[in-house]
């Protein structure tokens, strides 16, 4: 019981493969459920895709309209249409966007990179700032540092995204002129000619907005965890051995709070995606989020469904990464003593 713990790479590899398989199955079933529900919702909604399509073409006769409906399968029952759509999806055909007149997959691919850059920046920034602030609050519990930072966290977590975005926009883009007012690239320059720093320049404000809104969550959780750790018996013993302040933090505080913080941060992908939709709209940033709201408002059913499915996939992958990471880092999970977190 005591001795079969030593690292056995083969067994560990097998365990991770199993975990991956389990997570993949879970993800596929979730994707299926999301596709079914979102398709049902769109079918039940008053949106008429044929009508939307015709609006871009001009007036047609009733026969032509009937032909188009038949061509698109609108005369068939929803179940048949769903199966048809699902079949197309499985063959990699997400359909053509009605708004952009381009394949949905191509739009997602292009927009995703912008959104991903935005979310990654916000994610890294909020994670690092949030964790650091959480540690400070936990180490200085009930001292002035904690009091000030905690209030800041409460304040930021209760501010709406679009409002904070507008304030930052007013201050840094309009008044100070440090950052561009909107879009993901400068206006009037071909996409191929945009430099990386120009992209980053456009990215800064929306990323800041997003990260300011999400760091309080991780900061407050880390604070709680740090307080728990600091009250533990092993911290008492470490202090009895003369460890104080920074040494105590690095040797025990960091070690015991980073795992929960990482899990939480990976699990916050979903929230981040929701925040990105709003931030992208405020900053007219050409990402998935603004495409999603455009698709919703413009009744672009293929794009709407495509992005919904894709964002589900994205959030799932984030959560799965958290699970796997936990399994790699935490010695208890790694050695398979306890199969927690499942």
């Amino acid at each position, binding site marked *: 019981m005591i001795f079969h*713990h030593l690292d056995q790479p083969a067994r560990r590899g097998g365990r991770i493969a199993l975990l991956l398989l389990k997570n993949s199955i879970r993800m596929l079933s979730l994707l299926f459920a999301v596709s079914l529900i979102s398709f049902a919702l769109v079918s039940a909604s008053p949106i008429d895709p044929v009508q939307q399509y015709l609006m871009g073409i001009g007036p047609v006769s009733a026969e032509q309209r009937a032909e188009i409906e038949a061509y698109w399968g609108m005369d068939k029952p929803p179940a048949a249409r769903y199966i048809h759509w699902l079949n197309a999806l499985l063959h990699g055909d997400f359909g053509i966007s009605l708004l952009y007149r381009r394949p949905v997959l191509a739009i997602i691919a292009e927009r995703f990179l912008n959104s991903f850059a935005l979310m990654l920046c916000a994610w890294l920034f909020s994670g690092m700032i949030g964790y650091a602030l959480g540690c400070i609050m936990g180490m200085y519990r009930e001292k002035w540092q904690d009091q000030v930072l905690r209030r800041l966290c409460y304040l930021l977590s209760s501010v709406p995204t679009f409002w904070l975005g507008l304030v930052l926009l007013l201050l840094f883009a309009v008044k100070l002129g440090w950052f561009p007012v909107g879009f993901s690239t400068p206006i009037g320059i071909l996409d191929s000619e945009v430099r990386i720093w120009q992209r980053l320049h456009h990215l800064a404000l929306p990323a800041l907005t997003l990260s300011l809104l999400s760091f309080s969550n991780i900061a407050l959780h880390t604070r709680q965890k740090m307080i728990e750790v600091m009250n533990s018996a092993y911290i*008492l013993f470490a202090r*009895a051995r*003369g460890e104080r302040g920074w040494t105590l933090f690095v040797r*025990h505080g960091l070690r015991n709070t980073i795992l929960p913080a990482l899990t939480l941060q990976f699990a916050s992908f979903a929230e981040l995606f929701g925040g990105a939709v709003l931030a992208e709209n405020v900053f007219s940033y050409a990402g998935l989020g603004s495409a999603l709201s455009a698709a919703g408002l413009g009744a672009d059913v293929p794009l709407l469904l495509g992005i919904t499915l894709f964002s589900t996939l994205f959030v799932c992958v984030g959560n799965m990464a958290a699970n796997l990471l936990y399994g790699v880092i935490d*010695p208890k999970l790694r050695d398979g003593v306890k199969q927690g977190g499942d």
Partner: protein
Amino acid sequence: MEKKEYRRGDPNVPLLAVNGLSVSFQMYDNTFEQRALQVISELHLQVHAGEIVAIAGASGSGKSLLAAAILGILPDNATAAGELRYKGQLLVPKLQKQLSGTEIALVPQSVDFLDPLMRAGAQADGHRKPRPTKERRRLFQRLDLPKDTEKCYPYQLSGGMARRVLVSTALLADAQLIIADEPTPGMSLEQALAALKMFRQMADDGRAVVLITHDIDLAVSFADRIAVFYAGTIVEIANAQDFGEGPDALRHPYSKALWRALPQNGFEPIAGSQPYAGRLPKGCLFAPRCSRSTPQCAQKAPSMRALRGGEVRCFYAHGRPKE
């Protein structure tokens, strides 16, 4: 077990001297008024090199806080008064921080005192790493810890292994004063005996061991002197053999009652219960439960005085009845 007489340095200067230590907590009760809860009152104790002093008393009597006060790790809302001296030097916070983990070592009771996410080897080294890895491995071997123990995380250790890893921290630091806080609960008798033998060995090597325990039998068989702890203070310091001899050899009414309450001595319980820290009696802390208390006891707390080779806090303790 043979108890050798060792003295290092000036034998007249005790390794540890606790003079009139009091510890109280600042508490807010429901009226938001601050109130001081006294948990240790006017405690006196001297510990010399080469001996084991057992501090014996009921759970919740504040024994662990004594350890915390010596090591300078009292909680933030606790204040200490009185004087602590190590080798004659006043133990101020700066010196405490410097000495704790080097000269003065705590040996805690369970695996909970090990960081769950740090390997045992690294924990034994601590942040100071007083000895090279090779020596630490040799010590682990001497403590019967299997070779791969150093790579284990605490959850992979058995209770006994964890305790030996904890003991190894004191040995690696080559601490002169070892404070062992309840090292035996949860152990089998053999394990407890083995652990106490380790402490006996440490003392025989010229170190001083303060053994905090509620197990009087074990204390009697391994300690040189026993300090009887009651309601936050030491009421009697007796030689271990006094406990073996029985109530006549003991000095304080509480120690006598404690002796009679041992299973082999009649299992006779003491009436009443230990006073709660917020409601300590004004005079002698034991007076409300003492059969011999007088109005004087309720008015004034007796101070520690020497008696028959020990020390006692009682007005009426007297010389041994004539045989």
